[in-house]
């Protein structure tokens, strides 16, 4: 058990290490010169040389990398080239927005996707199943930004033109300041993100449930005279859950990248939109920090899934011994 967890943690660290090397090398070979970005176009050669020395850019790449990792381990992410603010400060100001977005969307997509999948599987081939499957395939095919723009047009612009203030055009209100305003501002992005992802869960749940419902112990449960509801949720859904947990881990892990487009469409100033602006301004320390944060997200989410498995399923525990 311990060895299993250690090997998973080790793999997570390897991912983060390779990711940091990747971004570091990427920007090292980049044609843009950080000194030029900081000092501006009119800077003299001497000034730029000074900046390079100050940033340690005159040193060989492996020394630069070790310095970078050393600082990272001390919690120092460096300073933005553009705004000169500490990167950690920039990130912390953006994280609540992204977290709120992801949190609400996850709750919503599970609440939409799983019931659709279960009711499809209960009556395969029925009208309900067909509708559910139709929803799933359209949802899977819908690019989030197209759905987001259509939602804004139909639910914000048209009503407000008619004089009804149904939803705000986007933006963010902190939860602590105004919980209702927080939810009201996030409803459209939540729905947009949730509908697209819920489709995946509806399909996955349906497939798993169909498989489980065909098994002997379900027939036994029915023969015992248990209620249909109890069989569906207690007996069948419980054994259909593991693949859903895995998928949830993957999806939540990748969300930091996944929300970029949603944040762009709804004008939310979260980590994703910070990534896009930093990329267009070649703000190297910020991009590196975001990519690593994204990697950390994935690694932690996968680790949590692995731990859940190890705790729930004795086969995993013994297999790793």
């Amino acid at each position, binding site marked *: 058990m311990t060895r299993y967890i250690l090997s998973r943690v080790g*793999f*997570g660290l*390897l*991912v983060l290490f*390779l*990711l940091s090397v*990747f*971004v570091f090398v*990427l*920007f090292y*070979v*980049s044609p*843009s010169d950080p000194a030029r970005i900081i000092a501006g176009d009119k800077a003299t050669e001497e000034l730029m040389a000074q900046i390079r020395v100050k940033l340690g850019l005159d040193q060989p790449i492996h020394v630069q990398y070790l310095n970078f990792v050393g600082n990272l381990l001390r919690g120092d992410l460096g300073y933005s080239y553009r705004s000169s603010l500490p990167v950690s400060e920039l990130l912390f100001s953006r994280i609540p927005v992204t977290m709120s977005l992801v949190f609400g969307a996850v709750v919503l997509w599970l609440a939409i996707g799983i019931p659709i999948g279960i009711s499809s599987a209960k009556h395969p081939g029925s009208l309900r199943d067909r509708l559910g499957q139709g929803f799933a*395939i*359209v949802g*899977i*095919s*819908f*690019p989030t*930004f*197209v759905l987001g*723009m*259509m939602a*804004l*047009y139909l639910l914000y*612009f048209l009503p407000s033109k008619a004089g009804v203030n149904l939803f705000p*055009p986007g933006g963010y209100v902190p939860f602590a300041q105004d919980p209702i305003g927080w939810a009201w501002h996030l409803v459209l992005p939540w729905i947009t993100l949730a509908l697209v992802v819920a489709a995946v869960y509806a399909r996955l749940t349906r497939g798993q449930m*169909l498989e489980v419902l*065909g098994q002997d112990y379900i027939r036994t449960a029915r023969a015992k005279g248990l209620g249909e509801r109890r069989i569906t949720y207690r007996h069948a859904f419980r054994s259909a859950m593991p693949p859903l947990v895995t998928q949830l881990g993957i999806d939540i*892990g*990748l969300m*930091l*990248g*996944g929300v*970029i*487009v949603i944040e*762009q*469409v709804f004008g939310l100033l979260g980590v994703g939109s910070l*990534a*896009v602006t930093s*990329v*267009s301004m*070649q703000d190297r320390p910020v*991009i590196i920090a*975001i*990519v690593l944060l*994204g*990697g950390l*997200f*994935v*690694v932690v989410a*996968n680790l949590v899934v692995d731990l859940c498995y190890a705790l729930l399923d004795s086969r995993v525990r013994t297999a790793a011994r």
Partner: protein
Amino acid sequence: MKTPAVKLATPHTAAIAARNSADVQLRGSWSLTWARLRRDPASLASIAAIVLIAAFALAAPLIASWTGHGPTEQFRETGLSPAGIPVGPSAEFLLGTDQLGRDVLVRLAYGAQVSLLVGVVASLVASAIGVVIGVVAGFFGGWIDTVLSRTTDLVMSVPFLLCAIALVAVLGPSLPLSIAVIVFFSWTGLARVIRGQVIALRHREFVEAARSLGASRTSIMFRDILPNLVVPIIVYTTLMIPSAIVFEATLSFLGLGIVPPTPSWGNMLADAANGSLYLLAWWMVVVPGLALLALTLAFNLLGDGLRDALDPSASKGGKGA
């Protein structure tokens, strides 16, 4: 091909063969697949949609010369209102114009070329890589399998959109780079599936037979094992195309894919989102948005239809697996 009588070994199989009319036996699996596909209206509709969109893409120069509007030609006199707002669908511009007074219909046709090209090319390359890695990992096992499987896991646990935008930001957006990035993050799923299948096939009798006849490893891998993997390869590759198309559109939407003024559906949508212009000019989002949805939906439906047609046992809960 004439079926030899020896094949009807037992009375049971003989009875089945007698029951099925002779022509079933004479038809190859491809024609059976086509027959099953033809009975599925969703698959037929999706094939029709794909053919239509491909024809539309190929006809782009014809459409341009028919309307007399080039894909990057700006009609600031006729295509923009005096206030500089794009004009809606009209006899002159059938699907309206964009913010620079360019014809949306013509740009849509040229954009279809990009979407199809990127989607199909990236998926074919990614699927070839996935197949080779999966077959090699599954067939050889041991340390080769460990290295390849870990590499696959590694690529899977990378926040791909963040890495993609970092990569494109540094190297500069271009069509080949978009394809390369999409390929790099798309081959993993297929590699996993193929590896699993190969492991299941590796010890089957026909592989043993080939080995005892002195066949080389390469020959066993590609002449004996690979033909058994045609179904997952075709289905997965078909389903990879829509994700590749959306991936490209997302990159272009973020300004990191196809370089303007070359039209792609992604950057047309980005033009629409820029300054929320689509709220005034709905056709700028509806036209490329629906085109994108139609294309991805068609490929997703076709993928599902192919899976059912190629492997009927899977969908009807038969004795498969």
